[in-house]
């Protein structure tokens, strides 16, 4: 036992010394990273334009993210796609027919949602174990569900947000990342008050987008926080576990409130290394 303990201690010291020694002589920082994330979450939606009831969507999704870091600057581009079934727990499972004697169908609409984004951040501080960044994020989020209360339900939101990221390094392999976003101006398209999108010689999509309105923080609130733990697996790859939460409130044409709780498991590929002595 004593021998095993001594061997482990020696191996630990050797490994620790090697890492420490290596980090003191030369550092290699990745200049870019590509992240693939599997997402699983729950959206809770209370949109009085569609229904007085709260709908839950348990969804799965995929996120792709490319980040470029150079000096004090970080650029980010990303894509996300998610889908899940919408259920109103208070109403249970409902089977409808179109007419007496007709075939029945369960009213469980599918929701498809996703986003495309681009962002820029500049470092506020870059210490050995702590980094913080402040910047902007431009993203378009689209939601579509066919059959919510037997109607089409859709929302499109192009928003510019302030984004702050805080990163704490715990040794060479562990990182804790915190991220906060707050939209400052958005162009938002929702189903109109009448719930009808119909214009001559125009596609419904075009007519829907034509209804977009510019809105700012006094009408649209959507704070978003994300915390992540990242473990460096190897020189070129890391694993990341993250949790994100966002809450949205918008009042036109009728109030909509929405929350998302989301877990993500990511694989990060680091590349374009630069040597720092």
């Amino acid at each position, binding site marked *: 036992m004593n021998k095993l303990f001594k061997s482990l201690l020696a191996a630990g010291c050797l490994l620790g010394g090697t890492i420490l020694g290596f980090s003191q002589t030369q550092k290699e920082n990745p200049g870019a990273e590509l992240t693939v994330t599997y997402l699983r979450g729950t959206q809770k939606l*209370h949109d009085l334009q569609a229904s007085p009831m709260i709908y839950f969507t348990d969804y799965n999704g995929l996120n792709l993210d490319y980040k470029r870091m150079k000096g004090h600057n970080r650029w980010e581009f990303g894509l996300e796609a998610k889908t899940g079934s919408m259920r109103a727990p208070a109403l249970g499972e409902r*089977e409808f027919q179109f007419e007496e004697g007709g075939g029945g169908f369960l009213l469980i609409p599918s929701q498809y949602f996703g986003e495309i984004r681009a962002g820029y951040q500049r470092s506020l501080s870059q210490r050995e174990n702590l980094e913080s960044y402040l910047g902007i994020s431009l993203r378009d989020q689209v939601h579509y569900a066919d059959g919510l209360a*037997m109607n089409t339900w859709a929302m499109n939101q192009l928003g510019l947000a302030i984004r702050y990221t805080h990163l704490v390094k715990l040794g060479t392999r562990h990182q804790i990342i915190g991220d906060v976003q707050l939209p400052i101006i958005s162009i938002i398209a929702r189903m109109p008050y009448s719930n009808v999108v*119909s214009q001559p010689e125009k596609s419904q999509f075009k007519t829907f987008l034509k209804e977009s309105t510019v809105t700012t923080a006094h009408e649209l609130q959507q704070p978003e926080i994300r915390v992540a733990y990242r473990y460096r697996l190897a020189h070129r790859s890391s694993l990341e576990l993250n949790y994100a939460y966002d809450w949205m409130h918008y009042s036109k044409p009728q109030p909509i409130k929405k929350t998302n709780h989301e877990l993500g498991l990511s694989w990060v590929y680091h590349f374009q290394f630069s040597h720092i002595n």
Partner: protein
Amino acid sequence: MNRFIKTSFFTSLLVYGLGLVSCNELMLGKEPSRIPISTFEYLWSTFNDHYGLFEVKQLDWEEIHAEFSGQVSNQMSDDELFDVCSEMLSRLNDGHVWLVKPNPGFRRFDSGPSYPEGTFDLDLIREHLSEETFFGPTENPLVLFGRFKNTNIGYLYLDHLGEAPGFYEKHVKTALAELANTDELILDARGIEGGDDRSAQVVASFFAKETKLYMKTRFKQSAKPADFSNWILWEVNPKSGAYTKPVVLLTDRGTGSAGETFTLAMRQNETVEIIGNFTYGAFSDNPKWELPNGWIVAMSTGDFRDQNGNSYEGIGLEPDELIANTPGEVSEGTDRALTRALSILLGN
């Protein structure tokens, strides 16, 4: 100590924050109660805020509330509540208003009038066509065309207008190219129960000689009474490959919704004469709303008028010549409206 206070503070903040975000009522607002009185009031106020035809139908919705609200109690059964709600909605006399209750015990109530079925039979007409082409299933074609035997009169039938405008752009153009050398055409709108008003516009434009306004639509845009969007103007616009020879359009009470906006559009084309019965009389789009107890209700949120501002909701469009088939005649193989259309065209 300082570190301990800091850690405790942030941990408490985190726990408080997690408690806050997991509270649905606080973050998402309250759901209405599902008891009968709440459901009835939600139904009434949804119509009060969104229904687009109170002015056209000259209805006092407050008065109707006063009449029916006293009949609702929280002790009543689902079926009893459905009966009261149906009775209230029947006052709208609107073919686009319906209420459904899910299984078990599915029920559907339609507010509009019901007319006899079987006043039109496509198979009866198909027997008289010498050449027939169709798109869609054999037994239920979406678009069908041909020529009447021993004549040079073409026939075009549309089952509905529910496909995207591009579908009709393609298939009606093909049909009219095939029928280009006929002298006249019978266009049968008796099967068109509804669809997309944009598709109706596309098909009608194939019969237009000039651009003409045929319809104005507007939609409720807030809960305020009579607060509507600006008028949306609908015009027929001549298309290449248009059929500008004499056309008889056949309509009946089964011609509804987009079938009626199509009829409005066809009325603007000079070469078109309308034979048959009145159309159904339900023009506006009818999105659906959900009630707190899970029932679904459909309602007209628009106000659809002809180019002169006349509304035909609940009335229907009158044909140039009224010939109303009866189910008995049709089951015996007689289609008087079609016979009259043929005689008019053969007399040309």
